[in-house]
């Protein structure tokens, strides 16, 4: 299949950047990243600068791939990361627009690569358990009701790719932060520090320059791991409770 790619090329954070057109020959069974590999091979052979893009596991679990394909983070396929998106979802002769995730908090490093360390700093501010909880406990050592463990697991499925920020009209990081707060808060080891965690992670999120959540729901539609915005409501509850009812005064 012959494709026209309109790819965002930007030499560095300070560069203005622009869309450039490329022609590539791909096959249906290629993944989207393999199709870009073919393009880059072509560019290297022509002694041109290959397109920079993030990738790591290429099996949909690491959260490294980050690009907006035809206006949709990770492309048009539901619950699919870019690396798991296959070219059979496109047609011969298609024009595909590829650009980086866009948010002030995610500055472009080069081409399609963005700096998502704002997420790391949100995690560093409280996305952990302070005490050593030892080795993985035996199964059913601590009885946890099935519904709760399933909800915690659903939140823990977040791979931190940042598609929620990319999709949000406000570039808000609430879905990410709420997933990270939720998966710890729902389980007994994490619940102890739940309120303090909600406070510090929201404070860091605000500091990073993400927008505010306005409940548009775009994040949960685009999330490759289908994280629900019910997590955002849980974070709201935790934050409101810890701000209003907790006797701890955070300065």
């Amino acid at each position, binding site marked *: 299949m012959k494709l026209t790619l*309109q790819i*965002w090329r930007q030499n560095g954070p300070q560069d203005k*950047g622009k*869309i450039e057109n490329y022609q590539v020959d791909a096959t249906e069974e290629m993944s989207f990243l393999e199709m870009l590999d073919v393009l880059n091979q072509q560019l290297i052979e022509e002694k041109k600068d290959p397109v920079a893009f993030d990738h790591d596991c290429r099996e949909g679990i690491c959260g490294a791939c980050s690009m*907006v394909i*035809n*206006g*949709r*983070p990770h492309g048009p396929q539901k619950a699919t990361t870019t690396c798991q998106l296959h070219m059979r979802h496109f047609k011969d002769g298609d024009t595909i*627009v590829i*650009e980086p995730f*866009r*948010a*002030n*908090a995610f500055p*472009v490093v080069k081409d399609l690569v963005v700096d998502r360390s704002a997420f790391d700093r949100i995690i560093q501010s409280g996305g952990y358990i302070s005490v050593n909880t030892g080795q993985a406990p035996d199964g059913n050592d601590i009885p946890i009701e099935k519904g709760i463990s399933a909800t915690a697991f659903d939140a823990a499925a977040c791979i931190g790719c940042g598609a929620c920020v990319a*999709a949000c*009209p*406000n*570039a*808000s990081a609430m879905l990410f932060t709420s997933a990270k707060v939720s998966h710890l808060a729902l389980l007994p080891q994490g619940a102890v520090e739940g309120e303090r965690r909600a406070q510090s992670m*929201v*404070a860091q*999120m*605000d500091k990073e*320059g*993400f*927008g*505010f*959540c*306005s*409940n*548009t*729901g*775009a994040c949960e*539609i*685009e999330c490759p791991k289908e994280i629900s*915005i*019910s997590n*955002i*409501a*849980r*974070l*709201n*509850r*935790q*934050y*409101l409770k810890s*701000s*209003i009812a907790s006797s701890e*005064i*955070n*300065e």
Partner: protein
Amino acid sequence: MNWFLRFFTSSIGRKLIMSLTGLFLIVFLVIHLIGNLQLLNDDNGLSFNTYAYFMTTNGLIKTVSYGLYLFILLHAFQGILIAKVNKSSRKNRYVSNQGQVANWESRNMAILGILIFAFLLMHMGDFWLKMKMGQLDMVKYDGYDHPVKDLYGRVSIAFNQLWIVAIYVIGQIALYLHLKHGFASAFQTLGWNHPKYTPLIKSVGLVYAILIPLGFALIPLYIYFVK
């Protein structure tokens, strides 16, 4: 900064203000509509004018109305501030705009809010200001020991002009879209998300968003086309 200020200037704290003031305004609209439906009575303004007299003289209602003005301003002011933050958090826009998956109204609450606020200024200038400060004709009804201001007459004059009726209908369409997103969104911000009740909140919100603006739009349309 003390905890109180820190809380109300945080992203979630500011959203709480939007949610609570929004919910207050949602309750107000119901009462406002029920009262105003008396304009449809064919009694030469008796029920509406005596109701308007009660609403502008009763001490408790006057006190609540100051709260209402404050909450409208707070909702509008905070909403504009939030919209500014949200707009500026993505300085470089996407080249492709095929990817808008969220509802139009949820993405344009600020624009709808500004439209509603502009409508509100006109609406209050036309009736509220004239009731409070302007000269309105006085009418005396049988069985009442004092005359009351004829706001009914003023409303009838206004709603006999097509352009005013048109502005009211447009204002209500903006209100419908604003409420369509705002009603359920207010509960989500409060953290009220529950597998059993969220679908209910969404349905009630949609019914509310349709019925209330429809009721308000009916008043000028009825006066213009029927009376």
